[in-house]
């Protein structure tokens, strides 16, 4: 039963990042960005529902039971996506690191031997191409904008860098999925990811962070302190009124 666990990794990434982006709603730096952030949040939420829906079918639970009735230790998202919004630079750095990886991953998964995964990945890939384009735009504008925006963007990149290693971490489950032709070799995505990030950073006059020690654990259910609060908020109604239909 490793497939459901694998699907939770995919679904939880999308769900938790969507939840973070939705926090911006009504508070964006300019109305157009408010709309764009919500748009990305909506796309990711749609993707989360497809992954969790599939995971649920295999385990006899629906998407809502998976989203609202699991505790933090059962969530399988990477640490990067649960990091707080902080400011617009942190939000966009998190998004950029994730989107570049997400695009590479989905491209591989769209050729998955599991047709359902292939279909979801192909659909999501189109959306993620737009997310990546937009995030790249902001890395350039903020990196090569004003002194303040440059400093904030560099700080955000430095702060978040240690959460990027986990994206490429192979473990027994990833290995099994890769062997079966269902998943892919995450470690092999690192080089194209780093090339792309370095190219955009150079153009944005930013330094690629040098830190090499990486945080890990999210994929195994060991999270940062932030996830508990995300879930406390997100799951409130389902927890307070057990069994109610909404």
């Amino acid at each position, binding site marked *: 039963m490793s497939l459901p666990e694998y699907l939770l990794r995919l679904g939880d990434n999308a*769900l938790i990042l969507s*939840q973070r982006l*939705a*926090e911006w*709603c*009504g*508070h*964006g*730096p*300019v*109305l*157009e*960005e*408010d*709309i764009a952030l*919500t*748009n990305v*949040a*909506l796309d990711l*939420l*749609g993707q*989360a*529902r497809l992954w*969790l829906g599939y995971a649920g079918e295999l385990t006899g639970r629906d*998407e*809502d039971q998976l*989203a*609202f009735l699991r505790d933090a230790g059962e969530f399988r998202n990477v640490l990067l996506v649960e990091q707080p919004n902080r*400011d*617009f630079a942190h939000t966009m750095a998190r998004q950029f690191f994730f989107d570049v990886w997400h695009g590479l991953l989905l491209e591989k998964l769209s050729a998955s031997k599991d047709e359902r995964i292939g279909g979801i990945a192909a659909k999501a890939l189109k959306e993620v191409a737009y997310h990546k384009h937009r995030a790249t735009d902001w890395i*350039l*504008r*903020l990196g*090569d*904008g*004003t002194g*303040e*925006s440059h400093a*904030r963007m560099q700080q955000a990149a430095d702060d978040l860098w240690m959460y990027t290693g986990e994206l490429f971490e192979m473990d027994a489950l990833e290995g099994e999925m890769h062997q079966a032709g269902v998943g892919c070799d995450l470690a092999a995505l690192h080089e194209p990811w780093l090339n792309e990030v370095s190219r955009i950073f150079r153009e944005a006059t930013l330094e690629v962070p040098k830190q090499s020690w990486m945080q890990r654990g999210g994929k195994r259910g060991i999270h940062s302190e932030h996830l508990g609060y995300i879930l406390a*908020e*997100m799951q*409130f*109604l*389902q927890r307070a*009124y057990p*069994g*109610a*239909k*909404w």
Partner: protein
Amino acid sequence: MTPDELFQDRIDRGIKIEPKDYMPEGYRKTLIRQISQHAHSEVVGQLPEGNWITRAPSLRRKAILLAKVQDEAGHGLYLYSAAETLGVSREQMIADLHSGKAKYSSIFNYPTLTWADIGAIGWLVDGAAIINQIALCRCSYGPYARAMVRICKEESFHQRQGYEILLTLCRGTKEQKAMAQDALNRWWWPSLMMFGPHDSESTHSEQSTKWKIKIVSNDALRQKFVDQTVPQGEYLGLTFPDPKLRWNAARGHYDFGEIDWDEFKNVIQGNGPCNRDRLRARIAAHEQGAWVREAALAYAKKHEKRAAA
């Protein structure tokens, strides 16, 4: 005929006024006030509903609410654009909102305390807005009238989604039904206030009617809303918080009680439960976003220069 008489003649003949046409200063000012107020309402209106996006009780409801709040931001955008055709900048309009000079719909100064409030806002607040806005589709200013046509289509979606939230709650557990009733109790009177003061008290009415900026009177619109909404509430099995509310067969309309005009005036004057929070949130978003907007401008300038070089 003088320019003003020619202008009035066009309006009387039902010809739309377009941005480059002659218009009296009063017409321009009234429209700027009204359209910018409307735009601000869409933007401030994101806050009470946004308050529940991260707590929506199912992924489906979360997606619907996200899309709805996004629609509202979009409405804000085209309304700001419509107002800009009258020669005022978005920056100026936002500055007027933040200084308190420009208003937004008072309804958004009430808090969203439970999930049922999201249903009530869709059903009642969007329902009241549609009644106002359908009338405005016939307004004499072309860009505003066209924006209204587009907005009305999306709003009627929102209203149905809101009603469906309440329908689900009313068919749910005892606690859920109580939640729906409580939301109606709190939102009913503020919704009626959305149509503004009685016609006899309305300061802008007469000239606006002549200019076809106002098409139907406040009291007529309010009556239409009550007539349309009461049967819907009865279908939900909810009780309206108005002992005077009853069908009047002779008039062919519902009779209803008097609005608490004291509360109405106070909320407009800034004393509603959330006035300060709403404005504070908008100002904070604007101020904290300043460095982002400056960076985007600086970047665009640099690249313009490089492209020219």
